[in-house]
């Protein structure tokens, strides 16, 4: 009970500096954990999003743009490809599934993507994970004349769509109310959340999007991209050679995972800057533990001398000061969890809105244990210098003048 009592009272006596120091530790800890979690979870989430398809075939251009457009429903389409190109790859013996998509319209900012019903019936997002609709709805009819749509869960939530609702699409990928199409679509169903960019999209039949009023009739059979599943990975290299090296008209983005990894490597400098900032904050926090306890040593020297005179050994005093620093670290780490959850909640919300990718805020990560432990150890280390000062307190000299 002795040590906890000494530590508790000391922290109470220096409450302001304790709170300020613990606050800076909390900030460092929360920031470090958030940066790490956002980085790892978003990379994993983006990679798993692309894992449903091995490759994307599109117009000649950037592979990254093609993947972002076709799988993440971001960026503009690099161009169209003829329906015959779709048919060619669909019939290729190395290809297991080929799903065409067409883009070019939106509903109040949320993309309309034209596709075939096979996307919902034949494709698994992950092994055993099929795409389903929420109760009370169904996938759209294969007949484009029915003018039916299936809304992604996030888009439906934001637009307030439910089965039976009708809407007029707007032309273009960005919302402009002057560009409304005449067609009226009916919502047949809302997809169950997939936690992928599919949730941010309103799906309509491919033919419906191709023939939307106002679209160029010459391109009425074109598609924006083809999502491809291969029978074997080796086939990907063969098709890569065929489209990208030998041909000059189309782009075969393969493998999707590598292209996403390239995206992350392009923005990795941002992670590194954030990490660096967090490490600096952590160092400053540990330094402030050292400074705050060291500065309080002069005021506490008499108390320490009294404890020594009462029989406390030097190592007890040393331990008390190091433990006090560690306790400040523990308090900071606990507050760091609060900052982490708030920060991650905000960032996860932004990422979901912008990309449809969902980060799991409450999921346990090793960093959630390692980072606070590291901070506590760093704080304890910061307490060593003042602890030495306390250790060397001259008892007789401090307690009273020689009489």
């Amino acid at each position, binding site marked *: *009970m*002795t040590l906890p*009592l*000494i530590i508790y*009272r*000391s922290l*109470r*006596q220096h409450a302001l500096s304790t709170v300020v120091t613990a606050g800076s530790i909390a900030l460092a800890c929360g920031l470090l954990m958030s940066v790490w979690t956002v980085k790892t979870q978003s990379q994993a989430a983006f990679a798993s999003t692309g894992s449903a398809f091995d490759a994307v075939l599109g117009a000649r251009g950037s592979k990254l743009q093609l993947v972002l457009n076709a799988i993440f429903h971001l960026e503009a389409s690099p161009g169209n490809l003829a329906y015959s190109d779709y048919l060619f790859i669909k019939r290729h013996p190395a290809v297991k599934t080929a799903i065409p998509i067409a883009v070019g319209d939106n509903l109040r900012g949320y993309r309309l993507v034209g596709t075939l019903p096979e996307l919902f019936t034949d494709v698994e997002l992950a092994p055993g994970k099929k795409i389903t609709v929420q109760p009370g709805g169904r996938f759209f009819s294969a007949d484009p004349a029915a003018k039916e749509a299936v809304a992604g869960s996030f888009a439906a939530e934001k637009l307030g769509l439910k089965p039976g609702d009708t809407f007029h699409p707007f032309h273009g990928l960005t919302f402009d109310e002057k560009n409304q199409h005449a067609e009226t679509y009916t919502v047949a169903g809302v997809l169950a959340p997939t936690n992928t960019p599919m949730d941010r999209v309103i799906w309509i039949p491919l033919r419906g999007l191709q023939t939307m009023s106002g679209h160029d009739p010459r391109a009425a059979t074109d598609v924006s991209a083809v999502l491809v599943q291969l029978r074997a990975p080796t086939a990907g290299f063969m098709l890569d050679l065929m489209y990208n090296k030998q041909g000059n008209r189309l782009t075969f983005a393969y493998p999707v995972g590598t292209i996403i990894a390239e995206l992350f490597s392009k923005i990795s400098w941002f992670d590194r800057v954030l990490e660096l900032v967090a490490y600096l904050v952590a160092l400053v926090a540990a330094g402030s533990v050292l400074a705050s306890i060291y500065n309080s040593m002069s005021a506490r020297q*008499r*108390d320490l001398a*009294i*404890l*020594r*005179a*009462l*029989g*406390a*050994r*030097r*190592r*007890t005093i040393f331990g008390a000061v190091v433990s006090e620093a560690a306790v400040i670290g523990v308090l900071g780490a606990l507050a760091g969890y609060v900052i982490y959850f708030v920060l991650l909640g905000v960032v996860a919300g932004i990422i979901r809105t912008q990309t449809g990718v969902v980060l799991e805020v409450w999921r346990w990560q090793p960093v959630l244990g390692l980072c606070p432990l590291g901070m506590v150890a760093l704080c304890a280390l910061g307490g060593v210098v003042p602890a030495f000062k306390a250790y060397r307190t001259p*008892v*007789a000299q401090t*307690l*009273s*003048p*020689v*009489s």
Partner: protein
Amino acid sequence: MLTVADLKKSFRSPEGEGVEIVNVAAFALAAGEQVALRGESGSGKTTFLHLIAGILAADAGRVAIDGAEMTALSESRRDRLRADKLGYIFQTFNLLQGHTVLENVVLGMSFGPRGADRAHAQTVLGRMGLGHRLHHFPRQLSTGQQQRVAVARALANHPRLVLADEPTGNLDRRHAREALTLIREVCRENNAALLLVSHDEEVLAQFEQRRDFAELNQAMKETAS
């Protein structure tokens, strides 16, 4: 209980010269014995008590408490011996200002053999008339009450030897008398030896055994001559 032999301590003056403060050839105290040392300010009596308590390391000589030779022990063992056998009442009380009255006494006990015995600490404080002030901080107490806390802290562990350095120096006459009576009473009950230093004649007059520290301390004699 206490044996002091050829105990010497010097300090270095600001000019760099060695100044001998304590030089006591022999001094002894039996269990239960109560002795008052008369000494003026600056006579080295606090240093003498610090040397006995092992707070200061002696340059030469020996101090033995209850058979254990303090001067031959490592610092850590001196700390242990002090916690186990000694009660020290400081002139300026030396209470821990950030701790309550009860915590001051409990902390004082926690390094000794009894450990942090809150119930016993409460009993001792109750006996000092501080039962209603257990959770007050020293700054919330009168000087007399603070002194009683210091006494309670020194005596709570049933020490074999009590060192009291001008224990009534900051008290008015009435409180000084009360405090002194209490210290002597508890020491008698516990058969603890008491060595009290003071320059207050009224305090000294209460002791049957009185010694002049100036006579005891050869260093002072040499300085005077």
